[in-house]
């Protein structure tokens, strides 16, 4: 038997479904980042967040660096910077802790999220 991947260890699609609303609730409640989500369509945002979580959980995704850049360009213009990315990674970790994920897996998720930092910030 092969060693389960990060995505499998976290619980795959079901884990993404469980995590997305908890994560989005944390994001909308956090004054450090919620201004970037003002006025966005919540349902559309949830499906975007699902894509994001699938990627950082190591699951199948079609994200490209260009998508990340284009999708955040307008936010960088509004002041999106490293501190906001740090906050999102922190909230991601808190979400996974709440769902009972292992500390080492959470670190791995943070590593994947960090790998797109420069694209997100259009650097």
């Amino acid at each position, binding site marked *: 038997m092969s060693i389960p991947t990060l995505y499998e260890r976290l619980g795959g699609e079901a884990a993404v479904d469980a995590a997305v*609303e908890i994560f989005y*609730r944390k994001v909308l*409640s956090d004054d450090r980042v919620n201004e970037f989500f003002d006025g966005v369509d*919540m*349902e559309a945002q*949830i499906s975007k967040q699902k894509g994001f979580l699938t990627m950082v959980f190591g699951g199948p995704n079609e994200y490209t660096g260009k998508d990340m850049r284009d999708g955040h360009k307008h936010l960088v213009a509004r002041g999106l910077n490293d501190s906001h990315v740090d906050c999102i990674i922190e909230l991601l970790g808190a979400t996974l802790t709440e769902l009972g994920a292992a500390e080492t897996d959470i670190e791995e998720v943070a590593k994947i999220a960090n790998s797109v930092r420069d694209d997100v910030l259009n650097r």
Partner: protein
Amino acid sequence: MALLKFKEQVMEMTSGRSVLETLLEHGQDIPNGCRAGACQSCMMQVTRGSVPERAQRGLKETHKLKGLFLACSCHPDEDIDICLPDSEQFKVPATVHRLIERSGDVVELQLKMEQEFEYHAGQFVTLWRDAHLSRSYSLTTMPKSDNILSFHIRRIEGGAFSSWVHNELQPGEQLLVQGPAGDCFYVPGNASQNLLLVGTGTGLAPLIGIIQDALHNGHSGEIHLVHGALHHSGLYYHSELKNLAATQANVHYHPCVLKQTEDLPDEIKLASVNDVVTDIVAKPEGWKAYLCGDPDLVAKLRKQIFLAGCDMKNIYSDPFLPSQN
């Protein structure tokens, strides 16, 4: 850019402009209403080429197959020929049965359908006075054998359709009904779930139908209805809803207003619907919520209820979009 052909006129689409906007800019007379993909007044038909999936969102499968689409939501990738569809394909005649004056400038319009009309309580239809003037209204009834549909129509200052209904329309006259549409309705299968229904103004209309439907399906969970208005007179269904709550053990009615008046009875709270909702349930985990009425308020309530713990999939909403023509 894609080319658009309508009535022998060829028009070039420009970036960001919908088919409806392009046609109106070229002086074409196309019926339309909300311009946001909801009311379906701007339904057109494609006769050559194809339209993106998004332009057919919310339409019946049979209509999609016929090439019907919404001009306001259509940004074609290819050249298309389009026409105004034969209205008999999607509009059916109805006769005014009764008009009942309510308080707060609301009239209850009852229409008798000539044939059986399939819908879910809580959905909306578009009513047509003639080929040019239409407005969308929520159904306040649930399907019954008498084939009568009922709507709550508030008089809008300068509103062409509501003024016509309030000032001119008489029993026995005919109008046309298109639809139904919308996904804010009761789905059987979880009878013990608690329900939270919140409406301001005539946002109450679909909620009345949804409650009837829930009770008809033997719903046993608690059903909390919050009706908010600016003034006391805006609670135009107050006595009926009080009676309903008195006779149904699991139905709870929470009327509230924003403005104090001398005649305000104790049973009506001076509070915003947001505060009343928080008082009813601080953590709506596992609840189902129906939110109808003013778009800004519906958006705020959605966020409030989601953050308080309600799952997004359990939040149904019907923001009443203002007409754009």
